[in-house]
């Protein structure tokens, strides 16, 4: 049965759910799967399954796959139509658009040659092909935006069902395989703009030059308007698509990196332990300790280990030395000695020798009291050099002090 507009859309009207289900399947269905699908989406008033199956094939909605007689798939044109209706078109890559640009280049060249040869009636066919190519480009741009918007909405609704990694892979593919290459094409100084500029100049010439027949001028003018619309809509569609994708792309990219980083770190923790990561050193947190507690873990553990320590017996150092006591010297005794010895040119020498049996500390105390002036004026011996005074324990160094007379 040949397909007509009427019977095609009538079928679509009656079995739109079946068509939607065939579209969702996405892949070829064998005979059994097809029948199951048909059975699920028809009601009791429908004709037999065999009739519907036959209509699907005769209307050209389904066709056999190239690899098997018993598997069927949606015809490409029907799939495209259903995709367009549901805003789930296949994304047109930069290569697809580039193909149309090549076509535009060829058509522009053809138009130029015809114009140069003043073969104006001949420009009608290339202009028709040009219009078609421009509309294809425009449709792809709009289709891309609609499809991307649909996919973004699906991805946003999938959190909780699909892991972030997978969602990021999907959005990453759209961003890096579709949008970025397209951006390079349609940039201000990109190949598309260059091609459009050239074409626009030629169409303007065809539309304005007085020597050209009015019908051709009008025709060229219409194509020029179509070019302007395509140019505008392509840019708008692309920018809208970027605006849809970019926030989710950024969010999923960061989520993906965050998740990947956490997973890698946990893998190291499981396999090698947490210490390997040196997280304390990397975080450098200020220590939080109450005052009075040891801050040195090593010292703390050492002291804890010492809690059961039993010291050895003390070493014996020998018998203690005898203690010698001296009767303290009275001032008069010192005075008498000094009086008999005056004038004294070296007070320290006298003290060290006269009271030699006494401890050094006592002799230095006597010298200090004389030096202080307790017994008369004690002053340095003029032009005397520093002297050394050897004793049993130490060697003293001092400048000689004289005492010329004492006061009784």
């Amino acid at each position, binding site marked *: 049965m040949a397909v007509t507009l009427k019977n095609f859309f009538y079928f679509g009207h009656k079995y739109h759910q079946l068509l939607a289900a065939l579209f969702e399947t996405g892949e070829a269905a064998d005979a059994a799967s097809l029948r199951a699908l048909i059975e699920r989406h028809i009601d009791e008033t429908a004709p037999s399954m065999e009739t519907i199956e036959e209509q699907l094939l005769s209307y050209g909605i389904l066709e056999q796959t190239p690899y098997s007689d018993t598997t069927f798939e949606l015809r490409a044109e029907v799939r495209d139509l259903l995709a367009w209706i549901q805003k789930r078109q296949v994304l047109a890559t930069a290569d697809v658009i580039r193909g149309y640009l090549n076509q535009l280049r060829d058509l522009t060249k053809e138009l130029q040659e015809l114009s140069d040869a003043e073969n104006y009636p001949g420009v009608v066919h290339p202009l028709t092909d040009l219009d078609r190519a421009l509309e294809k480009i425009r449709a792809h741009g709009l289709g891309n935006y609609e499809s991307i918007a649909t996919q973004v909405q699906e991805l946003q609704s999938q959190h909780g069902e699909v892991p972030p990694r997978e969602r990021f892979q999907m959005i990453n593919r759209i961003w890096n395989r579709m949008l970025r290459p397209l951006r390079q094409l349609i940039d201000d100084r990109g190949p598309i703009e260059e091609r459009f500029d050239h074409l626009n100049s030629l169409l303007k010439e065809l539309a304005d030059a007085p020597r050209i027949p009015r019908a051709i001028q009008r025709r060229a003018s219409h194509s020029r308007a179509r070019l302007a619309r395509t140019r505008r809509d392509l840019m708008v569609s692309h920018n809208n698509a970027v605006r849809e994708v970019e926030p989710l792309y950024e969010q999923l990219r960061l989520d993906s990196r*965050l998740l990947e980083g956490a997973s890698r770190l946990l893998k190291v923790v499981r396999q090698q332990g947490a210490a390997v990561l040196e997280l304390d050193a990397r975080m450098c947190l200020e220590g*939080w300790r109450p005052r009075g507690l040891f801050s040195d873990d090593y010292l703390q553990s050492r002291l804890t280990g010492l809690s059961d320590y039993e010291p050895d017996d003390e070493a014996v150092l020998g018998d203690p030395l005898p203690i010698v006591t001296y009767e303290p010297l009275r001032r008069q005794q010192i005075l008498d000695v000094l009086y008999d010895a005056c004038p004294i040119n070296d007070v320290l020498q006298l003290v060290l020798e006269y009271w030699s049996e006494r401890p050094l500390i006592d002799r230095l105390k006597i010298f200090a009291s004389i030096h202080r002036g307790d017994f008369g004026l004690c002053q340095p011996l003029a032009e005397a050099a520093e002297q050394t005074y050897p004793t049993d324990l130490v060697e003293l160094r001092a400048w000689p002090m004289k005492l010329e007379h004492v006061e009784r």
Partner: protein
Amino acid sequence: MDSCELPHLDEIFGVLRLGGHLCAEDGMHFYKLRDHFDDYHRLFSALGFDLVRHDRDFFYFRSDSDLGKEATEMAVFFFVLVDALGDEGANIGDTIFKEEFRVSELPHFRKQSHRQCMAEVNVTATEDLEKIVKRMERYGFTTRTRGDFFRFRLPAWRFIDLCYDASKKNEEETQ
């Protein structure tokens, strides 16, 4: 500005000295610190403290000595939480800072691999998780909202930075 005139100096130092992190939700202390950052930095530097301003606009002291082991526990806690959120398919970045978490419902012991990781930092029970959350609160990484609910504060970005660094390192190694 004379260091004696620095506003809220005592309180700010008191928080930072204990390892705390100050961010916008800390109100006046944060804003004064931000507005006089150079002066505070100079003063604290003279006292031997390194005041750091993070890209995400919060402040903390970076210690060069006397480092505890608490950072490791808190970091591993965070990594496991992120991994678990990933398993659930959540928008991780959004969830971390916008959602509240309940200690008794944390996912850290649901998967064997997560239990292993937590055991590496001696965390084997919900009570241990509670202690870590309290510790994070003390450092300013989390805040209690109600009951045993808590949420992360901006300084939790320090743990996120660790994850990004690890991811970047992986990217560089595989290129």
